[in-house]
């Protein structure tokens, strides 16, 4: 394996030197963000290859208004709120779910969304709210549960729907003239569900290559090499490096159930704003499972934390080292912005693995 890695590295350096110009390769997956930092892949890249992170962490891209709305809901209603662990420490305007739990709100961390529905089934007199967050990887799980809840006539289960879709966000980034992206490392497990076709517009309309990558250092380096070869040859296409689990057509059954339960809608992304068609809303026959209709709350005026540049970081315009708060007032034990909270956020990755490295404050071109 060591020899293989050395061979890939040499190939990357050869291609990069042949291409000559500076290249920004963006990953759009929190697990890639962590793997690149953890395995020190930036350290072994040629000087003209910048590995930048995009909006690949669902917790990080959730707008502060949505966080505030959940906090407000947990204060106002005695429902049991179930969430993935990453959500709990994200600061809202004046609190977090973690703080609210210490103040008596019924907030529970679950491993699987199924735990929330099972709890609702076992406790029919208790309202259960699942915070449905995540990209295409997680969306079919929510869809299965909503359909199951309807089939079994479960009346005390509903979701706060924060699901978001990746391809429309990539389009929004490509339309942003302030960011130059030369290649995408496409998210492996999102692609398990959606397949390779939804990325084709990136190659056809924008002339930018995509490689759907696995998560081992070997996979990521191979994918970078595949991107560079495409750039060298001037033939952008969608390639699947993570072919052990990603098929061109994705998981058709999962796509079908998403379509049965949800309709596309516009959605607010932190730092990016409203992206058309990037969210999902429950179809009419499932609206009873929408927490926002069952547990109404007042309008909230939220404000992103002062000085926090998570928005710029999520768009790949800045790296965490360029944030004045990084490592000072914003640390994993006291996060100011979501990218420091989530275990998959760029700031958390840099803090944990890269804050002492020389390339850390390198400005993006």
């Amino acid at each position, binding site marked *: 394996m060591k020899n293989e890695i050395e061979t890939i590295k040499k190939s990357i350096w050869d291609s990069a030197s042949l291409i000559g110009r500076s290249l920004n390769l963006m990953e759009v*997956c929190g697990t890639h963000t962590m793997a690149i930092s953890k395995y020190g892949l930036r350290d072994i890249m040629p000087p003209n290859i910048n590995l930048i992170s995009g909006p690949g962490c669902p917790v990080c891209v959730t707008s502060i208004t949505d966080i505030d709305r959940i906090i407000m809901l947990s204060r106002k209603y005695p429902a049991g709120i179930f969430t993935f662990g990453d959500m709990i420490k994200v600061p809202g305007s004046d609190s977090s779910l973690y703080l609210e739990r210490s103040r008596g709100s019924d907030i529970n961390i679950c*491993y*699987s*969304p199924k735990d929330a529905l099972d709890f609702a089934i076992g406790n029919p007199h208790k309202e259960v709210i699942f915070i449905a967050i995540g990209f295409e990887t*997680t969306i*079919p799980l929510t869809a299965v549960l909503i359909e199951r809840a309807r089939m079994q006539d479960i009346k005390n289960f509903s979701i706060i729907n924060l699901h978001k879709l990746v391809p429309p966000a990539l389009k929004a980034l490509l339309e942003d003239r302030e960011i130059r992206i030369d290649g995408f490392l496409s998210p492996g497990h999102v692609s398990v569900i959606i397949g390779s076709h939804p990325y084709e517009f990136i190659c056809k309309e924008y002339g930018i290559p995509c490689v759907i990558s696995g998560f081992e250092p070997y996979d990521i380096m191979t994918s970078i090499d595949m991107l560079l070869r495409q750039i060298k040859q001037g033939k952008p296409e969608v390639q699947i490096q993570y072919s052990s689990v990603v098929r061109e057509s994705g998981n058709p059954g999962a796509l079908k159930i998403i379509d049965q339960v949800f309709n596309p809608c516009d959605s607010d992304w932190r730092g990016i704003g409203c992206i058309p068609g990037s969210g999902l809303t429950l179809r009419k026959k499932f609206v009873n499972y929408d927490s926002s209709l069952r547990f109404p709350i007042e309008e909230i005026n939220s404000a992103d934390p002062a000085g926090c540049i998570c928005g710029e970081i999520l768009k790949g315009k800045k790296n965490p080292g360029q944030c004045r708060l990084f490592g000072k007032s914003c640390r994993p034990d006291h996060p100011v912005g979501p990218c420091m909270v989530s275990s998959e956020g760029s700031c958390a990755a840099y803090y944990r693995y890269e804050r002492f490295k020389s390339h850390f404050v390198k400005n993006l071109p």
Partner: protein
Amino acid sequence: MCLAVPARIISINKNLAIAESLGVSREVDISLVPEVKKDDYVIVHAGFAIQLVDKNEALITRGYWKDYFDEK
């Protein structure tokens, strides 16, 4: 968040299976991979199997570099 791990299916009971990953067995919902059989490898995300692992493809991926050398 989109973390997923490979696991081997040990037994199946309707839409639930017991899957083993690195020595840990856990209940997994297989609604999204109805074609799954005992001893298949699946990739598990948040308690749900979301895809079967193609063993041949896994081997081919590792063989990517073999092609590269042939090309040269």
